């Protein structure tokens, strides 16, 4: 489920220093958003940095602006029943025909205290683990919440 931390051939892919206690990986493959995330036009290149040892929390960090990052989580540990339907257009957009290749990540809003953290189930970030194209899908009409409590 985890993106392989293979060495990239692009020298500019360096990731900023991570907070103490996290395993810093200095070179990560660049993920290219086929459409920018809503609210962040112009940010298309990201890297995925693991923030904990258990693989529950990752930073989706802009490769061009190290100050911009999103916390993301794989849904399984938090929302075991979460199985978004990925439509054909989104699959074509990613250039994928095998859904198994697609890594699903949920964008987390940290909130005032950790227990206030929410995850966006309506707009998961989908990453093709082979060609590293990604998109924040918008599951309009799914009825899924934009802010679902992460910890309750």
């Amino acid at each position: 489920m985890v993106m392989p931390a293979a060495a990239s051939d692009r020298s500019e892919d360096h990731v900023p220093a991570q907070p103490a206690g996290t395993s810093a990986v200095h070179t990560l493959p660049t993920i290219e958003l086929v459409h920018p995330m809503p609210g962040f036009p112009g940010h298309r290149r990201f890297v995925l940095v693991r923030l904990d040892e258990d693989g529950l929390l990752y930073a989706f960090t802009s490769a061009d602006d190290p100050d911009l990052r999103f916390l993301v989580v794989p849904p399984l540990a938090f929302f075991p029943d979460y199985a978004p339907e990925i439509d054909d257009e989104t699959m074509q957009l990613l250039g994928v025909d095998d859904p198994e290749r697609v890594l699903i990540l949920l964008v987390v809003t940290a909130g005032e205290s950790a227990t206030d953290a929410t995850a966006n189930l309506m707009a998961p970030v989908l990453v093709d683990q082979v060609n590293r194209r990604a998109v924040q899908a918008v599951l309009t009409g799914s009825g899924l919440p934009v802010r679902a409590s992460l910890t309750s």
Partner: protein
Amino acid sequence: MIGDDVVVTVLEVRGDVIRLGIRAPRSIQVHREEVYRELQAANQEAASPSEDAVRNLAQLLRPPSGGQ
């Protein structure tokens, strides 16, 4: 039509409700404005949390048995 390749179709009119269909090339994303705005706001709120917030969350997510 809007431009050369965006097609707007009225799918259904029922009372006060009109359903529209919009067909556009894949390079153009079509969203309902209120949905898109909500996502913009949610992403902006989520972006670049403080180190403290990240640390607290990582702490909270650590399984009770697996911590050091």
